[in-house]
């Protein structure tokens, strides 16, 4: 049998329907790929082979009975930010210790109800705070991609898979799962997708329920998939999205069939190119990538329009007030009393302080402190209120743009994948990774990253599409045009495999 792990999700669905292989065979193929790769790539923090095989067997029964559900028997990875009933969930933080949730996240439940098989829990930056997956308590994830030197040989330097959904992006790129769940607060789906040649979509705020997802910044957090192709991402999002009475910010609106939007083309579609995204010091290859994207859409019948989003440069500083402020409130619950780690001190306050010092990593502590500062007495108006007002202006920029265009095209990241430690010394350098993605969260819009080319060193680059609220369908049809023009980008060698 050919290597089943190389299939796209849509191809695997077809194969199962035609009974070319069973769900158990497909699942076993991924489990053995994970067993080989994980000691090197560290994408999974908890493989769940027994759970996966039990789900696959159930799927095979339903397929045999002609009762297959939309994602029947399709193996996926689940970011460790999603609570899994009875299965350890840590947000890749020491503070959650050996936490076994007594409930399942709504997004996860939707996927299992659609027939998907969970292969395990995926690594991420601690509490989803990071852009390189270097802040995880379980250690960094290694990208399956490697740079190609001038001699044409692959370098042994370890590259980051992006973050915070670095386990998701690496696992999908390395064929360790068909697709993966992910979350995006400032770019955590789109940036890792761009750095690994995968497709990632953050839907409109409210499209997916946040219930049962470990909270970081509640007004920005949103779940979405990372997948191998645009079609696969459409299959995943359709299953993940729903209205949920348990999340008051989830929207009660029908979820369209995103797959049906693929293939509609972009004839007559108005594509906006915001001049403010041509930032100083942007690399030549990113500029070329952007020009390629513009050309592909134009060739497919779209019209291109220069637009202006004047408050773009203020999105990142405003984000670094809003996100830490909400993080400091959300993470106040980790007090060592009801679940997770407890380090005993001399009295109650000492116990709190020792527990939180031992349980939270450096970046998480830094963000809690910033958030505590901007929310502290006397500073609220100057920081948090100011940032929320700037947010109104950022959203207004987009509202005005929607009068002229249907979708916005930008690069996803300012530069290609970087090596370990390259940006860990200076928090501000790491924060700049999110410069093109963060505006989308601030305005609550849907955003998608599509693989669009390779850097001069042979590593992937992505283009970002930004849409109107709840118009994910336009993102899917536009993304498909880019994928058709650019082709797919696979890792050149599975160097982690033995023999």
């Amino acid at each position, binding site marked *: 049998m050919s290597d089943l792990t190389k299939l796209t999700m849509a191809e695997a669905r077809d194969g199962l329907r035609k009974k070319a292989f069973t769900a158990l065979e497909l699942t076993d193929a991924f489990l053995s790929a994970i067993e080989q790769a994980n000691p090197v790539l560290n994408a999974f923090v908890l493989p769940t082979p027994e759970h996966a095989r039990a789900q696959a067997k159930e799927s095979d029964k339903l397929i045999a009975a002609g009762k297959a559900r939309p994602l029947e028997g399709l193996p996926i990875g689940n970011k460790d930010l999603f609570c899994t009933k009875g299965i350890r969930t840590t947000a890749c933080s020491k503070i959650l210790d*050996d936490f076994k949730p007594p409930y399942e996240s709504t997004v996860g439940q939707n996927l299992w109800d659609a027939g998907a098989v969970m292969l395990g829990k995926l690594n991420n930056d601690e509490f989803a705070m990071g852009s390189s997956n270097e802040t995880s308590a379980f250690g960094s994830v290694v990208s399956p991609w490697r740079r190609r030197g001038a001699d044409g040989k692959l370098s042994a330097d370890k590259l980051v898979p992006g973050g915070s959904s670095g386990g998701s992006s690496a696992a999908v790129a390395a064929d360790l799962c068909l697709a993966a769940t992910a979350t995006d607060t400032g770019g955590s789906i789109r940036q890792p997708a761009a750095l690994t040649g995968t497709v990632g979509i953050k839907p409109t705020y409210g499209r997916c329920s946040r219930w049962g997802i470990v909270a970081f910044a509640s007004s920005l957090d949103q779940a979405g998939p990372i997948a191998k192709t645009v079609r696969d991402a459409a299959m995943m999002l359709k299953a993940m999205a729903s209205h949920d009475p348990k999340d008051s910010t989830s929207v009660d609106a029908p979820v369209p069939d995103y797959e049906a939007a693929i293939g509609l083309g972009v004839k007559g579609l108005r594509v906006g190119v915001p001049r403010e995204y041509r930032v100083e010091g942007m690399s030549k290859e990113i500029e070329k990538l952007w020009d390629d994207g513009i050309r592909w859409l134009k060739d497919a019948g779209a019209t291109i329009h220069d637009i202006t989003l004047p408050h773009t440069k*203020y999105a990142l500083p405003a984000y670094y007030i809003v996100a830490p402020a909400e993080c400091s409130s959300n993470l106040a619950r980790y007090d060592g009393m009801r679940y997770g780690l407890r380090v005993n001190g001399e009295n109650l306050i000492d116990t709190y302080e020792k527990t939180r010092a031992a349980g939270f990593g450096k970046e998480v502590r830094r963000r809690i402190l910033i958030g*505590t500062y901007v929310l502290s007495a006397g500073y609220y108006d100057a920081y948090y209120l100011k940032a929320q007002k700037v947010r*109104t202006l950022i959203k207004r920029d987009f509202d005005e743009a929607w009068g002229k265009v249907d979708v916005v095209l930008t690069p996803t990241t300012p530069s290609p994948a970087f090596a370990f430690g390259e940006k860990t010394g200076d*928090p*501000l350098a790491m924060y700049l990774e999110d410069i093109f993605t963060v505006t989308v969260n601030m305005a609550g819009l849907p955003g998608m990253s599509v693989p669009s080319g390779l850097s001069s060193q042979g590593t992937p680059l992505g283009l970002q599409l930004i849409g109107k609220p709840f118009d994910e369908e336009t993102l899917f049809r536009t993304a498909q045009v880019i994928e058709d023009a650019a082709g797919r980008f696979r890792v050149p060698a599975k160097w982690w495999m033995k023999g």
Partner: protein
Amino acid sequence: MQVDEATVRRIARLARIKITDTEAKALEKELSGILDWVRQLDEVDTASVEPMTRVVAQKLKMRDDVVTEGDIADAVTANAPMTDDHYFVVPKIVE
């Protein structure tokens, strides 16, 4: 905006995170750097702008005030570091 060591210690106390002397020194520099950088928002005139409260306008749904899930004390206390007969055991609070 410069954050001094005393402020760092005050915030850390408010956030209930113990910090060492070395950490306090490093944080003084890091927090000042980040807070200086976000001050560029002062360039934006927001005098007549309303702060954003929701990204998508929608009316909050009301539900009946009833118990929907009960009798799950086992599940609620299952992950606690210390429990006794469905109670969370915590350090002494009142002397």
